[in-house]
């Protein structure tokens, strides 16, 4: 009984994981590459969902709606980026400000309603939850896997280019980047835009998948994104060195997150406690490397002193 219901919920969990995986890759770009914790994404996810749903309801092609949602995400990132680099507001606060503002903006987009439905019976959609257990090309899993691979491929290419390398340098060492003639402010803005574009794209997919956009659909999104990043790193960090594989690890991390989620729900966890659990897990995994770094240097120092010499 337990296993059949778990098995039944597995395709849905994987689909959700794939959708949130794209979002988590966006979070990875800011959190790991730019070294900025961008809290805009909670609002951006809903903005992407709202934009896509309202456009499709207005008769716009669902593929075009996805692209426009992506563009809306770029805009969200641009605003946070400008608040941070041109107005001197710390990145975290800049993100919170945009996120809060987006709540109102998203309500505007959705015609002052907190929720807008998008039935797959009435509109042609990119993907829908309804077909997730079907053995046909309508099954969203195929499309989502393809999209994830494309996103990872494009990002792998971009971060290997001159421009992409300069963004990596901006995150790794801004002082060095400027000394090498890199406009770090412009790169931070560009990175935030790209990240939020992906998040909004993911939001647009999610809204279509579940058949509605909700003004609160992005709440806690940053934490889920971080959870995916961290799960991916913990499990694959040692073996996935290549950048594309690192992004793949994030996507798989999101899938694992949703499978585990299903598991604990099946085991009888109250849905209301989910966000508490997610926060605890992320906090713990963020803390462990810090604790390790506080213990390890001492050991390393002792070891070095034991050798009695120093290397050049």
């Amino acid at each position, binding site marked *: 009984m337990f296993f059949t219901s778990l098995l039944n919920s597995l395709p849905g969990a994987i689909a959700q994981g794939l959708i949130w995986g794209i979002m988590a890759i966006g979070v990875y770009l800011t959190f790991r590459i730019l070294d900025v914790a961008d809290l805009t994404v909670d609002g951006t996810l809903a903005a992407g969902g709202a934009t896509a749903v309202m456009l499709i309801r207005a008769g716009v092609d669902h593929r075009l709606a996805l692209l426009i949602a992506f563009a809306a995400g770029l805009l969200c990132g641009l605003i946070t980026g400008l608040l941070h680099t041109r107005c001197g507001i710390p990145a975290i606060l800049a993100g919170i400000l945009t996120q809060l503002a987006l709540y109102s903006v998203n309500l505007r987009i959705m015609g002052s309603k907190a929720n807008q439905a998008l039935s797959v019976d009435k509109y042609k959609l990119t993907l829908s939850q309804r077909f997730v257990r079907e053995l046909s090309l309508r099954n969203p899993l195929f499309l989502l896997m393809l999209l994830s691979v494309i996103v990872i491929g494009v990002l792998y290419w971009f971060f290997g*280019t001159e421009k992409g*390398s*300069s963004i990596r340098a901006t995150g790794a*060492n801004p002082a060095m980047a400027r000394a*090498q003639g*890199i406009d*770090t402010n412009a790169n931070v803005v560009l990175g935030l835009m790209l990240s939020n574009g992906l998040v909004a794209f993911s939001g647009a997919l999610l809204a279509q998948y579940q058949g509605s956009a909700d003004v609160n659909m992005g709440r806690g999104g940053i934490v889920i994104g971080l959870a995916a990043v961290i799960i991916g790193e913990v499990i694959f960090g040692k073996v996935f060195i290549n950048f594309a594989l690192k992004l793949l690890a994030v996507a798989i991390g999101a899938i694992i997150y949703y499978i585990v989620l299903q598991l604990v729900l099946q085991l009888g966890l109250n849905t209301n406690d989910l966000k508490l659990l997610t926060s605890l897990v992320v906090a713990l995994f963020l803390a462990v490397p810090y604790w390790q770094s506080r213990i390890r240097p001492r050991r390393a120092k002792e070891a070095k002193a034991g050798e009695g010499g120093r290397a050049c």
Partner: protein
Amino acid sequence: MLKLEHLCKTFNAGTVNEKIALADLNLHLKEGEFLTVIGGNGAGKSTMLNAVAGTFPVDDGKILIDGNDVTHMPEHKRAAFIGRVFQDPMMGTAPTMQIDENLALAARRGQRRGLKWGISREEKEQYFEKLKELGLGLEDRMSAKAGLLSGGQRQALTLLMASLRKPKLLLLDEHTAALDPATAAKVLEISDRIVQENHLTCMMITHNMRDAITHGDRLIMMNEGKIILDIAGEEKKKLTKRELLDRFAALAGTQEETDSVLLS
């Protein structure tokens, strides 16, 4: 090549921590000149270098590099003219990027960065040869992360990065201060070679008087944001540490300041 005219910079102006770092500083550096800069703590040496590099805006005065007024140019644009090596070995490289990637970033200093691949095969071959010349064995570790290198190796790599695209001006900010004596000597030797081979105009801050005397062809001493001693040519070649100290004592006056130069 480099002209500093009436440079002024005060930190924390109007507060109890007010510090006049540059007080109407003037300096003219000719093309190909290798200048060493000495002075006690807080004399304004690093402030001068950072003002030239554009780390912060100056309060007053003008900075000209090869005739271009760069006084109001942002740091990343000025970088087109300037190669830099910092005191802190961590500052000059991107630790999470590979050695060859760091070099590729530096090779594009002052260039537009587009959507071409970040590093080419020919470049890698060129970097292999250049790294070999350093004599540190880095050529066999080109895909290692720069963060894995020792302080000396990083400074050598940063020097190579600074000279990969020939700068009009090379700024060395006590780049051997964080190294042990043997490594410092090696990095200084590499610095000398790179400056000579590329005929670079160079400014080097050092805390070590002997290094200031034995390297470069001109020496200035700073105190309280001004240049108080400027020695070049034959006179510099004959200069001894003792003589330098005596002249500093005569100029700067107080015993306390002499000690700060001596002991630092």
